[in-house]
């Protein structure tokens, strides 16, 4: 090897791979995804049709008819309002809880590490199964939570079965499952913050609350935004927990976007309306995900720069 002239192999081996290589490498993944894009395009097409499976004779192109009908449909606005309330509540509560837990676990002690591992468990539980767990615990006949609540003097707390407490109950399950996600991201963020500002503040005797609001929060904010956007994107599309818990009931209390679209499709076989609902949801998530990805890339670059 050493006997050869040093510049010889460099010329022989072309260091730049052939032009088609990146395409070849990403093509299989793309093909699989394009297959999945086709139903997406058909969904867009269906959303412009008057299309009920049980009224085949009526099938026809109506441009934005389904969307316009949605605008005048009180039920649609009810769905928008529930989805937004669900999203705001879950993301808000999870952010506050996640931040508190992350702050409590910030120091790398053995106990703290053990706790942070244990707290991963709810996140690894399937949301649909988690709903079943909470359903058992809130059963009016033997559920432990119903019993505990009755000890506190509330005799018939309805949990998921009463319109006034159903939203609370599904939010509770969502918080149980997803708070650890916030915790993981924020904890990683906290632990990666540079130490100098904190040490300087401690030397100067700056009050802790002041440090938290003036140093910790601003430095942590990219992580907070990334984590919140990520949860926002998931929460606005919530299906599993609501479906497994109540199938959207009682009444129309929990008819969030995807649950309503599911019912429109299967119970009323109204493919056009169902598709229109989902396209509206997709547009919302598309905008949100744009923000998210931009934010996330910036965060990555930052952590690379600091590395």
């Amino acid at each position, binding site marked *: 090897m050493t006997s050869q002239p040093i510049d010889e192999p460099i010329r022989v081996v072309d260091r730049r791979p052939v032009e088609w290589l990146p395409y070849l490498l990403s093509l299989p993944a793309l093909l699989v995804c394009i297959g999945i894009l086709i139903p997406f395009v058909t969904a867009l097409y269906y959303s412009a049709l008057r299309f009920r*499976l*049980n*009224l*085949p004779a009526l099938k026809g192109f109506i441009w934005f008819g389904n969307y316009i009908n949605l605008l005048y449909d009180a039920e649609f606005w009810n769905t928008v309002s529930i989805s937004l309330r669900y999203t705001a509540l879950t993301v808000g509560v999870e952010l506050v809880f996640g931040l508190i837990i992350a702050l409590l676990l910030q120091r790398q002690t053995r106990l703290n590490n053990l706790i942070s591992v244990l707290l991963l468990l709810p996140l690894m539980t399937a949301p649909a199964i988690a709903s079943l767990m909470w359903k058992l615990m809130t059963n009016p006949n033997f559920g432990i939570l119903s019993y505990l609540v009755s000890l506190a003097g509330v005799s018939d707390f309805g949990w998921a079965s009463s319109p006034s407490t159903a939203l609370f109950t599904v939010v509770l399950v969502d918080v149980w499952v997803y708070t650890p996600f916030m915790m993981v991201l924020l904890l990683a963020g906290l632990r990666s913050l540079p130490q100098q500002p904190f040490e300087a503040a401690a030397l100067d005797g700056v009050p802790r609350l002041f440090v938290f609001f003036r140093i910790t929060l601003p430095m942590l904010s990219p992580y907070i935004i990334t984590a919140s956007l990520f949860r926002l994107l998931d929460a606005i599309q919530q299906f599993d927990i609501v479906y497994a818990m109540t199938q959207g*009931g009682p009444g129309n209390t929990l008819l969030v976007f995807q649950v309503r679209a599911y019912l429109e499709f*299967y119970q009323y076989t109204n493919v056009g309306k169902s598709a229109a609902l989902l396209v509206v949801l997709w547009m919302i998530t598309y905008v949100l995900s744009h923000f998210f990805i931009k934010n996330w890339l910036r965060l990555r670059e930052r952590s690379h720069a600091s590395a």
Partner: protein
Amino acid sequence: MTDRIKALFDAYAAGRVSRRDLMRGAAHLGVTAATANVLLGSSLVEAMAADYDWQAQKGTAIKLLLNKHPYADAMIADIENFKKLTGIDVSYDVFPEDVYFDKVTAALSSKSDQYDAFMTGAYMTWTYGPAGWVVDLNEYIKDPKKTNPSFAWDDVLPGLRASTAWNGVPGGELGSADAKQWCIPWGYELNNLAYNRTMFDKAKVSVPKNLGELKETAAKLTKDLGGPYGIGVRGSRSWATIHPGFLSGYANFGEKDLTVNGGKLKAAMNSTGSKAFHQQWVDMIRESGPKNWSTYTWYQVGADLGAGASAMIFDADILGYFENGGDNKEKGNLGYAPFAANPAAKAPTPNVWIWSLAMSSFSKKKDAAWKFMQWATSLEHDLFGARKMDFVNPVRASVWKDSEFRDRIAKSYPGYLEQHDVSAPGAKIYFTAQPLFFDVTTQWAETLQKMVAKEVQVSEGLDQLAASIDKQLREAGLG
């Protein structure tokens, strides 16, 4: 030889009745052992030489989609006989009711050929039929080559035959001359009162005769019993809340869901009569209904009656039937009564739910599937189910005349036969057949929930409901 004796022996010959049952059945019909054997022999020969070839699809395999239900249980208990009779192999998927119809829609809308036949109700065929997912069974019933001559289609109660046949025209009359037979009735339920006799005695009330009395009796029961509530009815946001007691009482006042005028449909729930009925119904639930009424499906309504948490239900008669057996707390305490909500009405007008069998258009084994459907809805299987299993209510007139079945019911279910016999003539589907059935009834249930929760006044709520339904009918080109 009477038809009944002959049918019994034919059933044995076809392997649908065990030898012991045959002998018992024969003895019951007054046939001695000696003649029985003779008859049996002839019957066996007759069956083999019959005009109908049960074995024509021997070796094929069909798959069924079933709801978890006593009817399905009874059928599965007897399925080996079908396999022996026809040489057709049968497999099935069973789903619980709250996901069952989504599964059916999923299988049919994807044009899947997985399932050859499935359980359904008549309302669902108002979607499946126009969508082209189910076969018009007249093609089979009316074809002597395809159907066993002793299938005796006319033996099925006429109201049920009509209720499962529709011409596909929105608002078209059920059972009209041009109607297509979308499914075959299998078992059915009508809606009347089932009540706890012990509790009625304790509170010293008699069985209510009309809606006013029902409301008062329920209120008195709730007040006097100190614990159980007076009247159980369904309340979930679903078509299933509208179709049992509620619609039966509603129809008794001559009220309609929709009116049909020159082929155009129009909502009719906001008439004066309808508003008065709704007001009474809503007040009754508020005063003496279950606490979590808005989540109540048939399951909770029945469970409460069986567990002694409610004193009476206005729901499916067979629900009261099942709660009187098993290991229910109130087992043996229940009684049954026909109920005409309108004091001016001569007889009850129960809306019916008919569990039926339908054939998938996408099946590749339609002839074998039809063999199964004939067998499962045959007189013999109906009789077997009614006598031995809890296959109530049978759909065949001759089973209702069977003394073994009648004796069994009369002994353990006081008033059951009477409520059925009194109301059967008026028992049929009182809904207007149209593809937006589920849209209309779901919204109707939702409006009821809002009224009970006092979110809206009855009159105002019904006006809004009617306006909303009219709009949807117009959008769908029906109004």
